[in-house]
């Protein structure tokens, strides 16, 4: 694939005295979808927050398009072309849906292009158009997720950070949203860094994946290869092969090979 867009090398991030990330390196190439899998508390969100500049890494580097963005404040990082659709959606509850989307394009001044992008978002998520005048706080969880993704798209990102888009949604809605995520990637050429607990859908959507456990990357490979690994099957996809007698007699350990 083509050149590297985002390069995270060896970052270590702390919440006060607690080390959440213990030396993580990630690369996102132009136009690709990369996923970071991991259980609760593995540090997935922390990685995205470090990239966005909400948290500063104690050690290590974050570079975007060859430029160091490690010390920038979140609004400056966004102006470089990294848009973040945060965990828990974080929409503006008392603004209308249209105003929320307008805030997504806060940094832009090209009116015609903004209008075109707005139509594009409404094209991906027709529900939002129906509810454009409604207060965002009154939307359902799924609609709020659509809004959060669209709002990030309105910033016309080169790299889109998606944090748990499946959180709290019905399986059907999850499938729909991930299909659109894939379309956004293909049609707009936006690179996506996707953080997910739902390994099934994430591996199906992404090109390349990292597995994160307690602040460390324990495995990385193309998603097709990851899906074939025993440990991934066992612990992330929940497939078990039964033993000779039809049931398993011991608990498996993770080997990460």
């Amino acid at each position, binding site marked *: 694939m083509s050149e590297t867009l985002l390069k995270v090398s060896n970052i270590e991030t702390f919440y006060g005295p607690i080390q959440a990330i213990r030396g993580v390196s990630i690369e996102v190439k132009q136009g690709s979808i990369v996923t970071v899998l991991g259980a609760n508390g593995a540090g997935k969100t922390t990685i995205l927050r470090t990239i966005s500049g909400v948290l500063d890494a104690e050690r290590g580097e974050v570079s975007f398009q060859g430029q160091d963005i490690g010390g920038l404040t979140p609004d400056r990082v966004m102006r470089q072309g990294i848009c*973040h659709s945060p965990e828990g959606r974080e*929409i503006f509850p*008392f603004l209308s849906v249209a*105003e929320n989307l307008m805030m997504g394009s*806060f940094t832009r001044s090209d009116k015609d292009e903004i209008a075109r992008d707005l139509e594009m978002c409404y094209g991906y998520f027709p529900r939002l158009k129906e509810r454009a005048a409604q207060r965002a706080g009154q939307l359902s969880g799924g609609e709020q997720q659509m809004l959060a993704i669209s709002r990030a798209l309105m910033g016309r990102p080169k790299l889109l950070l998606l944090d748990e888009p499946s959180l709290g949604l019905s399986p059907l809605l999850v499938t729909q949203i991930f299909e659109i995520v894939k379309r956004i990637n293909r049609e707009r050429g936006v690179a996506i860094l996707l953080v997910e607990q739902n390994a099934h859908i994430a591996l199906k959507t992404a090109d390349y994946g990292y597995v994160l456990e307690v602040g460390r990357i324990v495995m990385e490979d193309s998603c097709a290869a990851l899906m074939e690994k025993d440990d991934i099957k066992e612990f992330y996809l929940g497939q078990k092969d039964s033993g000779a007698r039809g049931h398993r007699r011991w608990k498996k350990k993770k080997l990460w090979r």
Partner: protein
Amino acid sequence: MDDAARLLQLVVNGAASGCIYGLIAFGFVLIYKATEMVNFAQGDIMMLGAFVAYSFIHQFGLNYWVGFGLAILVTALFGFLLDAIVLRRVIGQPQFAVVMLTLGLAFIFRAGAGLAWTYDSVGFNTPFTNKTVNLGGLVLGQDNVSILVGTLVLCGVLYLFFSRTRLGVAMQAASQNQLAAYYMGIPVRRIFSLIWAISAGVAAVAAVLLAPVSMIDVNMGFLGIKAFAAAVLGGFGSIPGAVIGGVIVGVVEQLSGYFLPPGFQDVTSNIVLLAVLILRPEGLFGKTIRKRV
């Protein structure tokens, strides 16, 4: 008929001083909504605005409207710098620190104004001083009418600003969800400083509108206490509530001055404040809608 006209006049006078309380309360609420800080120096920022206007209009002899505009600009700039240099540093500290800091600033402002200008009461001439208008038999002071009209115009302008302009909506967004506003590329710190600038500018407008009715002196900032009652009455999170609360406090104050024994006028705002806290702590217009998680 005579009584009715008298009553109406009292109501108009009360509404006029109530508008002043409302405008200061507006500053309280705006800053509180955005940064969760209660700025107890708001009344004293108004006092500074009054002295700045006095300088421009009386001492430099500028045209009233030019002086008005300049006073707003200078006071707004002062508010901006106050946040950027001082108050930004206490964000995230306990509420108590903020209360002490703004109370301390209020003392500094009073002493500073006394040194820079004077401890005496001063005033300046406005186009509305000592003139009356006759509305179908009802004779009203132009000063009071100018306060009412000025407040209405200002509220209209601010409403349009907050609902229609990109910057205004961004201010709402930053108040509602700071982190998400950062993710949108909104420079949240600068937006907060601008909110302080608007609050200070509105206080300056209140000061200039008040000038024909009241003298300017270093202690006029204690009006802020009544404005605080107005803000609580309005629900402390609602901007229209702040202005309406101010008008209610002002009218109640005037009426009690007329109907009740002397001395009651000065305590009515505190009685209103206590009554609201006991009977309806969320205020008249408190937001009951909560964010869905």
